[in-house]
């Protein structure tokens, strides 16, 4: 197996074009597990950790694919509260020091912790190849279980995510109080100026998935200009629609019925917290 260590993005794209089987590796928190278990034996690993562009974020926001979770939590929490909350639930401190959003997107596991936030926040994934750059909305990025929209010669370069324009919440159920893979998860982003919300579920369908009917329901049921205390009936209906958006399975981590139930609970609660933040005139995360 070759271990390729490009110093620049251009060099990395050339290598990827010439060796489409090369597996990109950043933090290695997914890839190395697969290698250790002999689940894959790529002809080459493409180490992206030396490329400065991937390790940076810029105003706007354009977050390099190789920025580790710990920096998102520590440095971007105010601007991207939802992403920071999801990042905080990833693995252990060691994993958060190494793991990246780019890696989460590359693996495209339905249980990846940041996916629901990216969906609910209208994130756009910037991918590149020697042929050029593509901007892929998160909603179009996840194609199936561990399958994403990348072409063979493309690398994930960055995630474009506007600073939060309203309250954001993320919630994840696991059967341990830390360091646990999601049984199911949920993210909500409020866009008060646009009179709408983004909502998405994780680990409850073959891909992370937006809850479009739930979003539409809230857009019509809520008055963002003069927010009043939420009616329980609104929360319940929203929870129900989120639950309906999921098509979970029974597996070793939980039953499909439990996942649907838990999604409804998380949707009700996170909507309540986000709305309260709006009512309180706050934008920061809890």
């Amino acid at each position, binding site marked *: 197996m070759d271990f390729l260590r490009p110093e620049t993005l251009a060099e990395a794209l050339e290598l990827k074009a010439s060796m489409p089987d090369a597996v990109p590796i950043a933090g290695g928190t997914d890839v190395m597990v697969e290698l*250790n*278990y*002999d689940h894959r034996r790529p002809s080459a690993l493409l180490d992206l950790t030396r490329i400065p562009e991937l390790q940076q974020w810029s105003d706007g926001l354009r977050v390099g694919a190789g920025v580790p979770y710990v920096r998102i939590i520590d440095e971007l929490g105010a601007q991207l509260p939802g992403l920071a*909350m999801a990042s*905080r*639930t990833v693995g*252990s401190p060691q994993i958060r020091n190494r793991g990246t959003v780019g890696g989460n997107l590359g693996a495209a596991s339905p249980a990846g912790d940041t996916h629901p936030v990216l969906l609910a926040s209208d994130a756009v994934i910037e991918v590149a190849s020697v042929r050029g750059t593509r901007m892929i909305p998160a909603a179009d990025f996840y194609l199936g279980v561990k399958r994403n929209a990348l072409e063979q010669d493309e690398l994930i370069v960055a995630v474009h995510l506007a600073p939060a324009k309203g309250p954001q*919440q*993320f*919630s*994840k*159920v*696991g*059967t*341990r*109080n*830390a*360091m*646990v*893979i999601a*049984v199911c998860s949920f993210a909500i982003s409020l866009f008060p100026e646009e009179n709408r919300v983004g909502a998405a579920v994780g680990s409850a369908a073959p891909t992370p998935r937006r809850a479009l009917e739930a979003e539409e329901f809230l857009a019509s049921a809520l008055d963002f200009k003069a927010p009043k205390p939420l009616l329980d009936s609104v929360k319940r209906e929203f929870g129900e629609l989120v639950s309906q958006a999921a098509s979970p399975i029974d597996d*070793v*981590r*939980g*039953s499909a*019925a*439990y996942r*649907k*139930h*838990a999604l409804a*609970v*998380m949707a009700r*609660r*996170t909507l*309540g*917290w986000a709305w309260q933040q709006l009512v309180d005139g706050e934008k920061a995360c*809890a």
Partner: protein
Amino acid sequence: MTLTPAELTSAVSGGIGTSPQRPDGNLKVRGEFAYASDLWHEDMIWGATLRSPHPYARITSVDITEALKVPGVYAVLTHSDVPGRNLYGLEHKDQPVLAVDVVRYQGEPIALVGADHPETALRAMKKIVVTYDVLDPVVDMETAVDDTPLHPGGNLVRHVPIRRGSQDVTADVVVTGRYEVGMQDQAFLGPESGLAVPAEDGSVDLYIATQWLHVDRDQIAAALGLPQEQVRLTLSGVGGAFGGREDLSMQVHACLLALYTGKPVKMVYNREESFYGHVHRHPAVLYYEHGADHTGKLVYVRTKMYLDGGAYASSTPAVVANAATLGVGPYEVDNVTVDAYGVYTNNPPCGAMRGFGAVQAGFAYESQMDKLAEALGMSPVDVRVRNAMTEGSVMPTGQVVDSAAPVAQLLKLVQDKPLPAGTSTDIRELPGGVSNTTHGEGVVRGVGYAVGIKNICFSEGYDDYSTARVRVSMVSGSLAAAVHTAACEVGQGLVTIMQQIVRTELGIERVTVLPMDTTIGNGGSTSASRQTYVTGGAVKAACAAVRSRLDGRTDIGDEVIDETVEWRHRATEALDPETGQGNAHVQYGFAAHRAVVDVDVELGLVRVVSLDCAQDVGRALNPQAVMGQIQGGSAQGLGLAVMEEIQTSGGKVRNPSFTDYLIPTVLDMPPMSIDVLELADPHAPYGIRGVGEPPTISSTPAIVAAIRAATGLALTRVPVRPEHLTGT
């Protein structure tokens, strides 16, 4: 010389009753300790194991031709290459070293590959062609005895009955229940690993992470067809055990490959293989009926319990005896009916794990005590205290408890501890933690109590002993001692305890613990909470022999004083096979817990807020190590209460990874307030009482009782899953 330990303690620092630093402590904290998986030998090759994908199948052919052709492969071995007895086992020799014509569990070893690189071995292993005639597995422990016989003698491994007092007495208040305990794993962090080095004379040295060098050696020698002296074992660095290393894993396999190839052979399991490579805690189904009078005094207890031993016997017979003899708990009951059955199925083999039969019974009888309290309108503590055994109480086996049994005192100690503050508003302290599932919504608090009993040391007439050698000589002008045993240090701190005992007994501060190996006599198993008792007793006795030769001298010139002692605890008796009567146990240990939990009743998530414990340890030779044992045992009990289970379906393991087999993290385990009683047992060295297992028994039912108190649900199965709490 008749100095007492108390007087001697003052002579040197680091004696008993203090908590000196572990000799292996710094290395482990710095990540420099050499575990068995770090073993290395020049010119060594790597072994790999081909395992059955089926829980039950007939093997119709095994073709190794293509595997042998892989460059770098030195050997591919099957059962026909086992030169000695192709069967081993702790109590029954029923488990093949390599499967012959049938596999009885998923993961059963069929063939071995030795190759120049672990990758080569894996590649070659995939080229071995095995054809199977897949059979319907037997997976239900309650009906297994009447199902397809998996072994020549049928599927009953052992039935232990106990009949005490009246068998048809009636009572004012009766509560019944059916309880289930899921399959828990020891989840030690250091996977199975060892290095076998062949010698020119046809003998072999094995460096190995194990719990019991001598019984490993005896089984290996029999399988290799070698005299015992030609199989030499040295303990390597052990990364935890908890019972999971009492049985053989790769020991014989590595030796077979080494002797066949003439090369040193290393074998290391990865985490997934480790789940298939060792026995687990027996899952159990337990039926109970408790009868009491209106004052809460127990009139009778009747129970029928099934323990699933899986495909091979391992230590099932002893586990069943423990579940039976300890099956009513630490309570006085005059009329007892117990039928405990250990059975064969095609589920993963089960054997020793911390608590060993007492854990399964403990969950059930403590659940029953809570149910009884509710039926009587009494508090859970009061109904337990009303029936608590004391010194002089009679066990269901007829055995008189002849040392301290402070059951009521332990319960009152945990009851009187201050309760934690009310439910937090900090999400880090709420169910779900930073997963941000609740800011207080749906969170209900509950409090629960439990107490448990565990036998210490080996039981039922087993000749349980340990051998210790203590050698004293002059080093740099002062006396120095070396202590040598074959008793395994698996992380519990025996190395420290042995140093402390020698310091105390001989007044010599510099004590070296020699590597543990089979050049000295049997040290017995590192299990049954017995090493401080038995090997500690042996070291103490060896020191006494040295001390009499030392005769008070502090300068012995060129003389070397070297004494080896074989030391036994008092004898025990077999159980009567009809009535279960007999003085079967050496000593009893007791612990009590009070658990406080916050339950998110809508999401079914639990946070254990506090888990306080009181335990009698007879005497705390190393107070810090005692606390560590109580904390660790309690955490393992917490795991069984709310998360730890090997899930099987049709005999297949569904979660052989630490991604899906969850053990508690530091954020799941609350800080503990611990009361340690030191009520000396006059029969034991220094009065000590085994400490490692009792806290594992009461922790689980206390937590489940607290969850019941919070939710009002019956919760008859552990681990409690979110689905059980939400009804989805």
